[in-house]
């Protein structure tokens, strides 16, 4: 080995650089990539350890649970109609208040007022028989099964949140099983997960967000008998399903009135039929036909299971239209009027495009707490005449990028309609902004600067396509998670198809604008 002469080595190294053009390499990218990997591991290892601890705790918990299965328990104002205590076979009834029933430690059932049910089932296969009223059920996953049985049908799940209502056409009095099947509508709404409904010998799978009513003749519109064609009058019934283009299925329970213009030979034949009802078409200022705004607003507000009086007439083939809304119905619809704007109102907003679909966009305008939905103008008359959304605007929607700042001109025509829209593109490819963090999501932040518009900054996408392991920059996602809404921030950003947050620096909390900068 050579004993080094460091003075000679110093000259040697400098000569290599100055004469040999051996400049030190730029290792920044490699170092940052290795640091990022280490940082991810720092997060991952404790997370895996925590997951292991949770797994052990879950196993222990499960074993404890298995050895001590909870008995049925009820809380809140209720009465026992059958049985000496709350247990299997007991019948529980509520009067004017709600009561909570817990079964097996994994089923939480909220009994609505005027509800009667019987506790059935067994360990990990809990079940109630709903005699009348309604329940909202929250069932933990992967513990056991749960079912709500009724005379009309059965709703079963293994982990979800849903509601079941027995809607009685003739009021609240109890009926024998046969009359119940004929007169009651089983209304099911699924909030999370999915449910299986057994009805009429068939099985129906309903996913989250679905609302479906099952009546004596199902949720299909009846074929209209000749005897009721041309009907015009007032009926009472139940909404059994919401349809497309502002229509709904309505199960008729009673015929209350018949108008002079009625042409039906036997109006009473409507009882028990499920009819399709939509809004009446009226002429607008431009002479073109469009659905009545008030009726559309009213229909939009309807829920499956709503029972009401309705003035309708058979307009064409099997369809009915609403003749006139009661003052109460009109008022209810006005409350629902989207955007809270009077018909014909126009305006311009600048805001963040928060979501979009083929024929709608949602924009959170400056100063508004929530995003509003906008649709294109309608053109070409009724759908049967080839009417539809403005094709140019539909094409424009396709080019928009969610999270970008947009300026749009709107008009209230039954819904908020987009007259024109443009993306406000950043003037630079990168920059720094200081302001208040006014909102955040899992992978984005909204920052309101002292001057200018609130803008959304997404975390950067790294690693290619999702199937290749790509995803949002996990370090930034963690940073976003850690920083609280309301604090002052300095954001370093870059722009590709949208603005991306490269670094966030917290300048101060809510109100302490003078706080020293600290990363």
């Amino acid at each position: 080995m050579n004993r080094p002469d460091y003075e000679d080595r110093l000259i040697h190294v400098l000569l290599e650089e100055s004469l040999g053009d051996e400049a030190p390499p730029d290792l920044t990218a490699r170092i940052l990539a290795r640091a990022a990997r280490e940082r991810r591991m720092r997060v991952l290892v404790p997370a895996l350890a925590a997951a292991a601890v949770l797994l052990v705790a879950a196993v222990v918990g499960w074993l404890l649970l298995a050895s001590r299965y909870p008995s049925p328990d009820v809380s809140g104002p209720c009465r026992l109609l059958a049985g000496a205590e709350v247990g299997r076979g007991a019948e529980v009834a509520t009067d004017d208040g709600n009561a909570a029933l817990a079964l097996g430690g994994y089923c939480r059932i909220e009994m609505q007022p005027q509800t009667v049910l019987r506790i059935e089932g067994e360990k990990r296969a809990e079940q109630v028989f709903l005699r009348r009223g309604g329940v909202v059920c929250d069932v933990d996953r992967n513990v056991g099964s749960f079912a709500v049985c009724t005379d009309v049908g059965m709703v079963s799940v293994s982990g979800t949140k849903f509601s079941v209502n027995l809607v009685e056409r003739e009021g609240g009095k109890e009926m024998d099983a046969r009359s119940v099947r004929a007169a009651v509508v089983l209304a099911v709404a699924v909030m999370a997960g999915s449910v299986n409904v057994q009805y009429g010998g068939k099985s129906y799978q309903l996913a989250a967000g679905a609302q479906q009513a099952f009546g004596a003749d199902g949720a299909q519109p009846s074929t209209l008998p000749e005897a009721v064609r041309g009907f015009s009058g007032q009926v009472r019934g139940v909404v059994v399903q919401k349809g497309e283009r502002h229509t709904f299925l309505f199960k008729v329970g009673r015929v209350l009135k018949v108008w002079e213009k009625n042409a039906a030979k036997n109006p009473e034949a409507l009882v028990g039929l499920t009819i399709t009802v939509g809004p009446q078409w009226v002429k607008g200022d431009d002479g073109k036909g469009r659905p009545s705004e008030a009726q559309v607003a009213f229909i939009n507000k309807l829920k499956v299971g709503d029972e009401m009086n309705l003035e309708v007439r058979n307009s064409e083939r099997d369809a009915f239209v609403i003749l006139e809304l009661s003052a109460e119905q009109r008022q209810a619809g006005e409350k629902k009027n989207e955007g809270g704007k009077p018909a014909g109102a126009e305006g311009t907003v600048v805001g963040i495009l928060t979501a979009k679909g083929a024929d709608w966009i949602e924009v959170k305008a400056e100063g508004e707490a929530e995003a509003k939905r906008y649709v294109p103008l309608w053109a070409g008359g009724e759908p049967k005449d080839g009417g539809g959304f403005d094709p140019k605007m539909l094409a424009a929607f396709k080019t928009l990028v969610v999270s970008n700042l947009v300026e749009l001109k709107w008009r209230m025509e039954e819904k908020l309609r987009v007259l024109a829209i443009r993306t406000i593109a950043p003037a630079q490819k990168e920059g720094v902004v200081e302001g208040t963090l006014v909102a955040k999501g899992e992978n984005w932040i909204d920052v309101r600067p002292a001057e200018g518009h609130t803008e959304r900054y997404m975390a950067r996408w790294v690693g290619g396509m999702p199937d290749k392991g790509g995803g949002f920059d996990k370090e930034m996602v963690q940073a976003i998670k850690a920083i609280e809404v309301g604090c002052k921030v300095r954001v370093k950003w870059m722009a590709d198809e949208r603005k991306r947050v490269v670094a966030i620096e917290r300048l101060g909390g809510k109100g302490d604008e003078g706080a020293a900068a600290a990363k």
Partner: protein
Amino acid sequence: MDRDTLETLVRTHQAELYRYVRYLGADVPVAEDMVQDTFLAAFRSRTHPAADDTQGTAAWLRGVARNLFLRHCRRSSASRVQADSELVEQAEDIWAGEFLRGSDGFDYVEALRKCLQQLPDRHRQVLDMRYAGRKSRSEMAQALSMSEDGIKSLLRRIRTALAECVRRRLAMENA
């Protein structure tokens, strides 16, 4: 240490650190690995000088690099460079005292550039063959009709002369 701080640290110090590790005796691939490892050690460490103390940070990074270099020499039986803690401390003294001189080494590099301009043509030709032309000793020996040992001695003499020239220049400038 967050990403931005690390990036700033790397961009500020990586050139000097690479030069330093090469000076200690690491070849190019080892030097690149060692520079990366040094910054990652800084990234992991909870105690290092304040970011605005550039010279203190540079000295701290050199200390980490020396330790990594010593560990590398001990583990690598193929290492042709003799190194122990006493030697690398001596290396640090020369680097800090002769090259950096309480600054960033710019004066030394500038003095060397001027000394190179004053070099006799034959010496400059030898240096160009070795450093710019990247000729091996045997190629140089053949081209200059000398033995390989003669080339080695000549290169050594030229570098020593340059070191003395630099020292004189720096002494004059400080006088």
